[in-house]
């Protein structure tokens, strides 16, 4: 399969553009509706990015707001709070990458290994539900279970043990946030991997078992390679979103742990941009984030290619 692709590719490089265009015109036609929608609803509004270089006022509008060059960026980069928010973002993202990302995959593999259909159906039909809870509700549930007056701490207190302060501890906040993300999103996250597992050819397992491979070897040699390209794709997309860590989740818990632990890029842009009616700062922060994210996803994609995976597209 892979070799076929390469041969095909080499041939293509030699082909002239016009011939490729004619050959692929149906494919291009198929892409048009999506591209047109994106051009209208995503690209057209991007003129708003220009406000990052303006002293924007909604009353003067985009055409008449005075230009300010790089002034907004200069003051943003000079603000220690901005760098603090970037650092928090990166740390939280890294913790989530390590502690959250593998969990849906592991859960999907576990569910896939359950042979009993009813058990599998029951578990599958339940685990994804927290995805539909709002962050307000999710945090409320955590507070009622683990908060200072929550179920766990009341039990500890009544039995004379020391209480365990997790909901308002700034130092442990990154782990709290990750635990919340695991609880809320892991079940929903397995869906894509279940679909990938469903696409693996079952004959491969039988053949392998007949050849004497045990269950761990089958997982290593058939299951994991079978979902590897999807795992890598999800990882590349996740890395592209490194700078996005739970805006709402942070906003809700800012009061509980304080700014030092919970300020991320998005909340920084919110508090110093939106709240202060400083649209230009909001636009500058979002532009900065966009550029960095694009670099990250392209780098992640490059790495995927280096290790022989497709990532976003085949090399």
């Amino acid at each position: 399969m892979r070799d076929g692709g390469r041969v095909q590719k080499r041939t293509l490089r030699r082909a002239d553009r016009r011939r490729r265009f004619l050959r692929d015109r149906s494919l291009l036609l198929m892409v048009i509706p999506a591209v047109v929608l994106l051009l209208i609803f995503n690209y057209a509004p991007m003129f708003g990015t220009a406000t990052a270089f303006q002293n924007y006022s909604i009353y003067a509008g985009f055409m008449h707001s005075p230009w300010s060059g790089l002034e907004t960026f200069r003051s943003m980069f000079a603000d220690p709070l901005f760098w603090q928010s970037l650092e928090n973002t990166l740390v939280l993202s890294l913790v989530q990458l390590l502690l959250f990302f593998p969990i849906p995959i592991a859960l999907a593999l576990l569910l896939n290994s359950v042979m009993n259909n009813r058990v599998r159906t029951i578990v599958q039909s339940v685990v994804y539900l927290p995805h539909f809870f709002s962050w307000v509700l999710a945090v409320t549930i955590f507070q009622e279970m683990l908060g200072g007056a929550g179920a766990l701490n009341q039990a500890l207190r009544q039995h004379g043990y020391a209480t365990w302060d997790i909901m308002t501890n700034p130092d442990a906040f990154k782990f709290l946030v990750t635990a919340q993300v695991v609880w809320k999103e892991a079940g929903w996250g397995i869906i894509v991997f279940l679909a990938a597992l469903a696409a693996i050819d079952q004959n491969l397992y039988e053949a392998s078992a007949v050849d004497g491979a045990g269950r761990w070897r089958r997982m290593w040699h058939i299951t994991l390679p079978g979902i590897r390209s999807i795992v890598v794709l999800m990882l590349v997309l996740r890395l592209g979103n490194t700078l996005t860590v739970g805006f709402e989740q942070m906003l809700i818990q800012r009061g509980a742990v304080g700014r030092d632990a919970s300020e991320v890029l998005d909340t920084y842009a919110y508090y110093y941009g939106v709240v202060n009616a400083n649209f230009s700062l909001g636009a500058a922060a979002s532009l900065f984030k966009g550029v960095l994210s694009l670099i990250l996803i392209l780098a992640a994609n490059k790495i995927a290619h280096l290790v022989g995976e497709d990532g976003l597209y085949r090399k």
Partner: protein
Amino acid sequence: MNPLDGLRADRRRFLELAGLGAIAFAGSGLLAGCGDAKTTNGPGTTGKDQLKALLPSYVEASNAIKPDIASVQGSNGFFSDAVFLAYPASPVTTATGIPGKGGTYVATTPLWGAIPGTSGNSYYEAVNKALGANVKIQPSDGTNYEKVLPTLFAGDKLPDWIQIPSWNMPKLGFADAVGKFADLGPYLSGDLVKAYPNLAAIPTSAWQCCIWNGKLYGLPVYYGGATFNGMPFYRKDIFDKAGINADEIDSPDKLAALGKELTNANAGQWAFGDMYGYINHMFKFPADPNRWTIDADGKILHRYETPGHLEALNWQNKLATAGYIHPDALADKSQDAKQRFWSGKEVISGDGPGAWTGDDSSSGKAANPTYNRQAFKIFAADGKPEVLMNPSAGMYSFLNGKLSADQIKEALAIANYLAAPYGSAEWLTINFGVDGVDYKMTDGNPVLTEKGSKEVATTYQFLITPLTPTTVKGGDVQATKDYAAWQGDMVKYAVKPAFYGMNVTEPAQYAKLVQPMEDTIKDVRYGRKPVSAYEEALKSWKAQGGDQLRAFYEDIRQKYGTGQ
């Protein structure tokens, strides 16, 4: 449920409007009072002499009805709400004839609650029939209003009539926005207002808040004669059981001393909730939306710089670190504070004065039959209490600048009808709809029917609100009387803060100073950081612009006075 529940004031309760899925946050530092907003065009405020010419004349309602408990005149012109234990038996009519001429006006108001359907709504139909016009009410979700408003301005989609709360104004840079609306001066200033007697009966202090850049733009949603943030409440039933006499608590130290006695963490009971927003009168510092005060030497001080603010932080910080404040309160779960108070998990809890109603007692009694909410009498650390008042109107409606003069006159005639005082026939129609359909008189007071509770929402009232008395809710006459007595005592200590009702527009560059301070204040009041962290933050606040901001206000004082 009384649809006017929305109107009593507790300007501070800055919210974490815990909607599901979406939440609206307002940085507490930005809950502005009378629309102070950033702008590029000067301070936006207006001097005293100019004000005089602009303000509508005050003409007391000629057919005022005698209340069951009269309003108490307090200090500095503030007064407590009159109390009606029952709706006047034979309601008078205050507006002559049908005010409208058949015009159609799309009106947008924020609404914090289920939004009723428009078509087939007998309440809307009844009010519009009475108005003689088609006021198409399009309520918008109050929690997301701050996101919708800028799009309406930027996309030129403003309706004919729109209400904007003062706390949404800073994000709009409102002094720049207000030019989109009709200047009402030529219709209402001075004696012109006499053509609209119900508008003329709205106290001057409310109209004063409606002026920006030297012009009268707004129609006030009047809060009352003595509006302030709130006070500490206590559970009298729990106090009685513990043998504590609340009248003996007359200093912050004595209040704090209750912490140990009333906290029993094992049983899930803590002495205090988050008190910070409700103790400013004890320690004498201005709280949002007020920011400034003038000390004994005549120096202008921001509330951050006042010694009282530091003392208050210190006071709460000690309670927090000693474990006397409920852990959920320290986790910033302010939206559940009432439930904690009802269930007795917090014995002493701050809240707005509007929390003290019969509806509240039925909620509390549902959790605990002996529930009894009472407030401490006003006291202060130095024994000389002062309660700084908030602007008497915090929301305003505006007419679109594109309306013709005739349309503006028709809209103002409609506003005159909507501003009909309590006790009138119009008031019942505006607030309760049709007798026997939307409401029924029960024990002398109008109570919404099941149909009414689905159709009636606070909508027309949010375009303009007249003087509203205290009324009986949930059938609890005692709670009404208790509150009235407390308020009558409180107004004796009422004081105007500096720059009262002046709609000062601060230069935009100072907006960024607020958030770091508010963040640090939370760190300290929740016991995460020591008070010294606040003193550090204050130093950088001063250095990074606080001192300049003071100079800006010094300039305002020279040119326009301090609103006293």
